[in-house]
């Protein structure tokens, strides 16, 4: 499963400039990857807004669930997609319509045609990556689980205590 590679600088910039992340395909089940990501990103201070037509009327992690991206009443920075690759096209079109800055597809999710449309509309696209894993890697947390972060540094890191 070779992932396309994005520079650490680009990913850092996206994560730094983001406040609101819409999570499309968000699951209310605690053991699903989308729930993991939401929970983790909330802990890092991001606002996460779940989008899932079959969970409308519920809350996930204290956030109201919306049926579509268009229903979200506030500005969204990242549209983070946890859906099968074939179904991504219309979600990306909605992301363009609502003026999101970034489309970010989860591990295993890839749709180059939709990505090209988003890029043509001026959005940044990341495919086949997990926001949580990349945040953890870039903030020195991934190595805590023995994962190769690829980061070499002689600088002292700021400690974040949340």
């Amino acid at each position, binding site marked *: 499963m070779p992932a396309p590679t994005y520079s650490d600088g680009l990913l850092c910039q996206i994560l730094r400039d983001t406040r609101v992340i819409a999570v499309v395909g968000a699951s209310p089940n605690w053991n699903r990857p989308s729930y993991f990501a939401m929970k983790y990103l909330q802990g890092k201070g991001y606002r996460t807004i779940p989008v899932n037509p079959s969970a409308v009327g519920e809350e996930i992690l204290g956030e109201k669930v919306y049926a579509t991206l268009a229903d979200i009443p506030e500005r969204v920075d990242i549209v983070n997609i946890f859906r099968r690759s074939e179904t991504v096209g219309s979600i990306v079109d909605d992301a363009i319509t609502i003026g999101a800055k970034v489309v970010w597809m989860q591990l295993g999710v890839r749709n180059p045609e939709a990505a090209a449309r988003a890029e043509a509309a001026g959005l940044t696209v990341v495919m086949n990556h997990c926001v949580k894993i990349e945040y953890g890697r870039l903030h020195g947390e991934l*190595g805590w689980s023995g994962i*190769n972060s690829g980061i*070499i540094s002689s600088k002292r890191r700021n400690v974040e205590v949340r």
Partner: protein
Amino acid sequence: MNRNEKPRGYGFETLAIHAGASPEPVTGARSTPIFQTTSYVFNDADHAASLFNLQTFGYIYSRLTNPTVAVLEERIASLEGGRGAVAAASGHAAQLLAFFTLLEPGDEFLASRNLYGGSVTQFTHAFKRFGWNCHFVDPRDPGDFRKALTTRCKAIFIENLANPGGIVVDMEPIAAIAHEAGLPLIVDNTLATPYLCRPFDWGADIVIHSMTKFLSGHGTSMGGAVVESGRFDWARFGKFPGLTEPDPAYHGLNFFETFGDFGFTMKTRAVGLRDLGPAMAPMNAFLILTGIETLPLRMDRHVANAQRVAEFLEAHPAVSWVSYAGLPSSPYRSLARKYLPKGAGAVLTFGVKGGFEAGVRVVETVELISHLANIGDTRSLIIHPASTTHRQLTDEQRIASGAGPEVVRLSVGLETADDIIADLDQALAKTKT
């Protein structure tokens, strides 16, 4: 974040010193501290729950993760060019963890018959009690692995540079055979270390280490590691439901879906280490980390000394044969050129004229070289496998794995080469009386 822009471009020597180890954030300590603690306080109950659910990264309890051990894990993953690693209390524990993640009761795997004797015993007897069956294959003809495959086979396991010594296994075609069958190739890279060979470059999917040996390098600490390449698609053939379906051992978590190319590593830790318990001690991780910092220097000298010792032995009248892939006479010379261009390691075997008794006599009369059951120390080490490490095997297994009655195994250390040679010379002289 500029300093993060060039991570994969660093050389092996740089990674051996730096990978995984930035300064400790609170104190600025530059050497990796020994976090001699069992447990870590939670911020609150929700933080604790997130950690237990694997929803956030962090430390809970040192059976699962420890900050000193984690530096070592990232270091070995980096040196192997892998995605992630789990350290274990020993090489044997690492093997158990790897198979525990892959196999169900009733499953089978293939292993090269040229393995460390303890691994043959572990696979033959202990693993049977988990319901796992190992079929041993002569690795000289890679095609024999294809012939031995069964529908229950879940992996192929080899030592690329085999212990007792001198045998190089042709990894690339064996990896191809494994992949055709939808199986991962597991390579024990203990004798070569990633400095001499990186199995992932030749198609391996999982690398195992006994870090007790050259990685630690000073005979101080037991340790093992399971390293994952991140390139094996566990879902493709549906053979690994434990990784690709909801795991009842972890409340229905799907490890491959959730963690992608390091799902195997996460499961090996969160289920394997959690339930079997062979965690590495932080003190050992510190000592092994310190050892790894000089791995490239040490391996160059180990190999140079081994080459000289092998040439001396081959010319000695009391020696009937020498098995070292760095010798022009070795049938493994061309494989060594391909897989081990920097040198064929530092463990070799030789046959002493006079059989079992002569072999015993050599190990008992050396004065500088230490008679003990280990390899990969700064000190030169010697053993007579037939009476020790390979004692539990049958005669047939012993001969098949290169540990016949006249065989002596030598792990060439970092002493002055002439001194190692002089010691062997005086010991060999005594076999003739």
